[in-house]
């Protein structure tokens, strides 16, 4: 999992920033630090896009597009539990219960479209697109 993230980072940054970028990406996957220059900025931007927030019985964003190897994290801001459950059969991922302020993460290694829903409130649907 960490290796995949590193691979992506390596592909995404300049050669001169390669080592620094990869190291910081592996050790601080959800860092929102923006203290250093181009490489770190790219990581921070990507970090922000990796999160799906559950608020008011909806996934936000509804469609999240990420590069292969990205770890996507769902954060539940609602007062009731939700799930992020793959709509595929069999399900490709299933968070089980994500209670208030809890998180669930899943690493998408293969390109494709991954529709998912909340198994408690099936009217809540969204998808992850992996390029």
């Amino acid at each position: 999992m960490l290796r995949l993230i590193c691979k992506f980072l390596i592909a995404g940054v300049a050669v001169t920033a390669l080592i620094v970028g990869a190291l910081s990406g592996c050790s601080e996957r959800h860092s929102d630090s923006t203290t250093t220059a181009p490489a770190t900025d790219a990581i921070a931007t990507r970090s922000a896009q990796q999160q799906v927030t559950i608020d008011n019985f909806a996934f936000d964003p509804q469609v999240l597009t990420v590069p292969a190897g990205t770890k996507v994290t769902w954060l539940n801001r609602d007062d009731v539990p939700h799930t992020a459950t793959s709509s595929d059969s069999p399900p490709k991922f299933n968070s089980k219960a994500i209670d208030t302020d809890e998180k669930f993460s899943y690493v998408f290694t293969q390109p494709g479209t991954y529709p998912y829903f909340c198994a408690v409130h099936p009217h809540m649907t969204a998808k992850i697109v992996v390029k």
Partner: protein
Amino acid sequence: MTRKIVEQAGDDGIDRRGFLQCMAWVGTAVVWSIGSGGILTSRALGAEQKEQQAGDFCFAQISDSHIGFSKEPNKDVTGTLQLAIDRMNQLKAPPQLILHTGDLTHLSKPAEFDTVDQILKTAKAGQTFYVPGEHDVFTDDGKAYLERHGKGAKGGGWYSFDHRGIHFIGLVNVMNLKSGGLGVLGRDQLEWLEDDLKGRGNSTPIVVFAHVPLWTVYPKWGWGTEDSEQALSQLRRFGSVTVLNGHIHQVMQKVEGNVTFHTARSTAFPQPEPGKADSPGPIKNVPAEKLKTMLGLTSVNYTERAGMLAVVDSTLG
């Protein structure tokens, strides 16, 4: 004919003495009395209490106790469930059995199921019959629920039984929910239902209980069951069918021919009316003194002589 029930006046043929007994605590309740012809009448109740007639049978419905929920507007859902049971127990003639229409727990945790068991043990009613809500099954596909309450049941926990001439059918519409879908009964359960009803006379009073409404309340919030029509079409030949559901944490009624639909309040927290909020989440800004007026239980009285069921909603405050 499909229509929303509005209060009706006029002769309903109901013997008040026969069905008001269960309502000792009532202040704001509405009585629903169902004749064998499907004629339904409602009336507001005072705090009066009548003598129960021999042959009457009273049972209660509670729903959505959500044990484990601990946020606004109710940080003591255990206390409010206990209050509902206490109210039943205080009646001169407590209900003989209780139906719990699901979401016993909030997160299907063993400790939450244990708490429900402990509180229900304090009920004077001889027995409690359960059906699961989605909160009882979504973490483990119903394993913990079925270990406790699935004995003798079929599939995801459906079953039927007879009591005092009424045929009770507990259905499960919260298993294997599909993305974007509503509650679902599934083919196996529908086939079982067909078998279960086979050979039963049309005059047998039927009570169906399930968690998600078996009529379409508000599909945008998932408040309905996609294949409920296939169940209802098997039930329409009966002269008196009462469908009791939970899930939406508020009282709603509807009648279609001889079938009367009813949803119960939660004992834990209220939810908004369909479309009256951005989402169906708990109504949070409820003053403490008002909360108990938004929680409640339902009692149903059956007068064998008249072949009628009266459904009564009561709040906890």
